[in-house]
């Protein structure tokens, strides 16, 4: 035992080992106590510099000794870039969906007298004029035929067919679709339905049967009149683009809607209207 006490190299080694372990513990990652400490502050720049030297010189030797490692690294980085791009695209998509749903939520909050079911478009008619769309909400969510489908931008159409978890919606572009509407400014009533196109370009939907004396002007706002009971009264439909047939018995007008039927992704189905509040 006395021999060990007298063994100087052993004692020096032991002391050095203990001190070095303490030093390693202090410089180990995650040791918050030393995060702002003088020791780490003094050592980090030098260690970072040496680490960067190690990376660059080590990289040279890797290129010399293991060229395959370089192509592996390249492949790995390409994969990472692809993954990041996919994540970014997904994030962008989520952000857009969030914006759309927020818009619908704001609309729903602004109309507390109506009860809505939010749905996403899961199918579109192959017809370029898109007169039918399919939504991912059905009878299980309380959806029934002839319910109104709207967005914050206006009326979309009416439910024409219902499944357990889906429904088909006949949009305003459908030739047979008729919605009872009124001019907000004058309260003149008419019927809206079918698209108006010129040289293959859709200009808007047609507004029929306005009284001959109706004072309708370009820019007038058109809203649902509530007649017929399918669409709640006062829903925004669109604005008057042009007026035809002035001086005859009735007026016709072209109404442009703000809804982009080709890119519609979410909609609200009006499943009920609380008359007491409305």
């Amino acid at each position, binding site marked *: 035992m006395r021999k060990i006490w007298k063994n100087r*190299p*052993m004692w*020096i*080694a*032991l002391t*050095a*080992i203990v*001190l*070095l*372990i*303490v*030093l*390693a*513990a202090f*410089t*180990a*990652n*995650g040791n918050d106590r030393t995060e702002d400490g003088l020791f780490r502050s003094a*050592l980090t720049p*030098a*260690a*970072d510099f*040496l*680490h960067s*030297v*190690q990376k660059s*010189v*080590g990289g*040279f*030797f*890797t290129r*010399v*000794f*293991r060229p395959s*490692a370089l192509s592996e690294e390249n492949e790995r980085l390409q994969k990472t870039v692809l993954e990041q791009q996919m994540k970014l695209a997904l994030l962008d998509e989520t952000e857009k969906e969030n914006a759309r749903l927020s818009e619908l939520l704001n609309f729903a909050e602004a109309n507390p007298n109506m009860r809505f079911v939010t749905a996403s478009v899961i199918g579109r008619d192959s017809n370029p004029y898109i007169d039918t769309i399919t939504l991912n909400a059905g009878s299980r969510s309380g959806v029934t035929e002839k319910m109104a489908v709207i967005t914050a931008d206006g009326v979309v159409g009416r439910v024409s067919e219902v499944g357990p978890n889906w429904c088909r919606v006949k949009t305003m572009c459908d030739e047979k679709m008729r919605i009872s509407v009124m001019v907000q400014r004058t309260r003149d009533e008419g019927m809206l339905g079918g698209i108006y196109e010129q040289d293959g370009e859709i200009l808007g939907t047609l507004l029929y049967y306005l009284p001959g004396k109706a004072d309708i002007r370009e820019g007038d706002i058109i809203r649902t009149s509530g007649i017929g009971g399918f669409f709640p009264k006062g829903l925004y439909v669109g604005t008057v683009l042009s007026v035809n047939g002035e001086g005859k018995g009735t007026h016709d007008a072209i109404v442009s809607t703000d809804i982009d039927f080709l890119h519609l992704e979410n909609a609200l189905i009006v499943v009920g209207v609380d008359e007491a509040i409305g």
Partner: protein
Amino acid sequence: MKRRLWLIPLSILAVFLDVFVFPSLFASGFRPLFVLSLALAATAATKVQDGMLVAFFGGLLSDLFFHPYIGLSAAAYLTAVAILYGFTRKAGSVRALVIPFAAIAAAAAELMIFGFSLAIGARFDAMRLLRATLPSVVCEALLVYPLSASLKSREKGSMFVR
């Protein structure tokens, strides 16, 4: 004193190999620690002080490149040197035993590094221990013999009797 001075450039060369060359040469985590082999060889071939010198400065320099655990390699190499020194003192001067002794010492150093990593929160990876650390230990131990022979040819006064 002269003897120790020429060990310093040798230690720097060993660090250079450990830090820049070996990681590029070998894949899948297998990385023999040349500084450790040199420290053990110096302990076996010359004096324990020489081994300690190589272990301390070589280990510290390696740690500066492989931060963030500055001092860990130096502590592990010193432990290995102390173990080899203890063995050789006990066993006397049996040259044939230098490789197994060096293997035990190198394993102790590797385990010390491994244990420290675990202690600060690293994930336990038994497969890595078997696939990378074990071959590294064998390689380090095998390197000790030619290195100690080479050092011995330059030096006299080895712990081992010729």
